[in-house]
């Protein structure tokens, strides 16, 4: 049992650190949830990509460096410690790309991944529908067979990044007669600028258009943009939620850096004898370390050939609640400035508030933890 890095990992860390020190913008970019900020973040993706830092864990042929999970963790630590910008391409990189690696064709990977890596094509997710939030199996938007492809009709919502993104991916009902709700769904990609697509940006709590509603009226999707077999959409979507993605959706580096920033804020602003605040700052430090080490253990299990399943629900509940607590502490440290909305902590706070809702509400994650990890009986009567 060890936490040692190999000489290669240390060299990789050094290289990443040097590159980031030389390239991370001195001033923070504008919020990526604004048009101006989105463009600036897209440029940053191109800059990362030019030196092969945008998707380090991908194979080299798609723009990556083919590094393993441990080096990815190292990169993430350095990336966030350097105060580098948020990743506008994260929906594509974290959600679509793993699906393509597992279920896509070589042609799809060759066509889709390089422009994703360079930021030329930014992807939005299109999972939810107005009547299907947590209950994803009740999706209604449909894809109907047409010559050489499919026609999408329906409505998607809470599509993150869709206000300014280029393309989107999601699952659609292709067989309305399938015996069960989660059958007859198909995973596909479509163009947000295609005829028949109407994008209506939605302002989140702070007014920034972090997501959008998509109205789809017979939007043509060629067969080449279907991932896996038609009718297998549910299985494909689920198969990548419990694997590495559960681990990589929020990197520990992100929280280690945030906890460091919080400690700095505490030293700069707080009365060190105020133990009530001190304890909360300490809990943020402890939580970041716990999350980092928990991830190291799971990465070690992957490296040893094991897989994780429902454990990713532990991960999700932990980071989402941790993130809110950390930001609440920061706002309390800021005092009267905590209310002012134009700082990094405030933007991070608003962002964190969504954590317990998306990617499966924490209520559902706790059901999964209890039922699948501990074998408690499936719910029957609530009382």
């Amino acid at each position, binding site marked *: 049992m060890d936490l040692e890095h190999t000489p290669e990992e240390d060299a990789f860390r050094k290289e990443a650190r040097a590159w980031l020190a030389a390239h991370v913008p001195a001033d923070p970019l504008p919020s990526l949830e604004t048009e101006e900020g989105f463009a600036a973040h897209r440029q940053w993706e191109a800059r990362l990509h030019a030196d092969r830092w945008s998707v380090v864990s991908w194979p080299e042929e798609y723009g990556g460096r083919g590094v393993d999970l441990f080096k990815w963790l190292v990169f993430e630590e350095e990336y966030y410690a350097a105060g580098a910008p948020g990743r506008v391409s994260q929906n594509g990189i974290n959600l679509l790309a793993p699906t393509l690696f597992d279920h896509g064709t070589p042609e799809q990977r060759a066509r889709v991944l390089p422009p994703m890596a360079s930021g030329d094509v930014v992807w939005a997710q299109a999972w*939810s529908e107005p*009547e299907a*939030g*947590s*209950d994803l199996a*009740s999706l209604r938007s449909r894809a109907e067979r047409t010559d050489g492809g499919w026609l999408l009709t329906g409505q998607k*919502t*809470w599509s993150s990044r869709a206000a300014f993104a280029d393309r989107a991916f999601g699952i659609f009902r292709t067989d309305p007669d399938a015996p069960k709700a989660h059958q007859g769904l198909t995973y596909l990609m479509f163009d947000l600028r295609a005829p028949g697509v109407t994008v209506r940006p*939605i*302002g*989140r*709590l*702070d*007014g920034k258009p972090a*997501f959008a509603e998509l109205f789809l009226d017979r939007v043509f999707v060629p067969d080449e943009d279907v991932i896996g077999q038609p009718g297998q959409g549910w299985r494909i979507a689920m198969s990548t939620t419990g694997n590495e993605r559960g681990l990589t959706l929020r990197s520990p580096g992100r929280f280690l850096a945030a906890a460091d920033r919080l400690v700095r804020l505490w030293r700069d602003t707080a009365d060190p004898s*105020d133990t*009530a*605040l001190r304890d909360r700052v300490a809990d943020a430090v402890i939580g970041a370390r716990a999350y980092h080490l928990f991830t190291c253990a799971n990465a070690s299990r992957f490296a040893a050939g094991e897989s994780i399943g429902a454990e990713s629900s532990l991960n999700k509940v932990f980071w989402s609640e941790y993130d809110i607590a950390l930001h609440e502490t920061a*706002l*309390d440290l800021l*005092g*009267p400035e*905590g*209310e*002012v*909305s*134009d700082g990094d902590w*405030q933007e991070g*706070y*608003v962002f964190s*508030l*969504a954590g*317990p*809702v*998306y990617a499966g*509400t*924490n*209520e559902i994650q*706790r059901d999964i933890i209890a039922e699948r990890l501990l074998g408690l009986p499936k719910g029957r009567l*609530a*009382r």
Partner: protein
Amino acid sequence: MRFLLDDEQAEFGRTLDRMLSAAGTPRVVRAWAAGDPGPGRALWSRLAEAGVFALAVPEAYDGLGPGGPLPVELAVAYVELGRHVVPGPVVETAAAAALMADLPAVAKEWLPRIASSEAVVSLRLDEAASPRDPYGSCGPYALDADAADAVFTVSGDELRLAPGHGPLRASADPARRLFRPSPGGELLASGPVVRESAARAAGWAAFLTAAQSLGVGLALLHRTVAYTKQRTQFGAPIGSFQAVKHRIADTLLALEFARPLLFGAALSMAPADIAAAKVAAGEAAYAAARTALQLHGAIGYTEELDLSLWLRKARPLRDAWGTPGACRATVLDASVPAP
């Protein structure tokens, strides 16, 4: 003992509730947040007609209070102002009125206009109270200074009329428009009486903010109950899931135990009682906001839904005119049990 609102007080609350429901405050709040105070000022006039601001003004200056402000009635009113997220410096105007009670020259000029809402005013305190700020209520900003007819500032033992203000600093709640008052300005009063008056004003501000918080929390709870009854997932209203029920039950619990603290504070206006009410109402309303957000899911996270008007207000009110930490310290300062 009759620790209940009397019929007149209860009816006053219901009247305001009806009036504000009919007024469609969300539209007014959105205009206010966008820098158009017109609909808000019109609403203030109607509140003034209902007597809300006159409650904070002594009879001698065209108000309703025989001596000073009427705390129980003000609490009733400010719960409703919170329930309907009425925009503007509602707390600051009443606190300024309390500040002026012992400053006859200032009172004569301003209190009648405050009672009628001819004057909407804001207030900023600096080292307001002696020996220390018992609620942690001193801060750099004056709320809604751009829409106010006057901004009063207290620094040390000097009361001044601010000559202007700095640029807008956006709050997490866009309907709370923050400005730094410009330094200096006309000296309206000075001396120990200003310091004492400012300490009293800080108490009123904390107290009325607690009332406003309670109203915000109650509105968040009731919107969440309504939503979870009708929103269906997995074939059942989400309000039938036990995890949802229990979270809502805890939200109600915290609000219902904050309520008597508020009215208890109204009866004594003692700093420790005000501080207790401020902590409890502020934390309960913020917890109600977290619950509302979680149980509405993504739709709660949008500014389009009117729910956001309450959601965004809960946390700033938790800290405005009294932080939880400072208020807890004040609770204990007063709590010296007999040996």
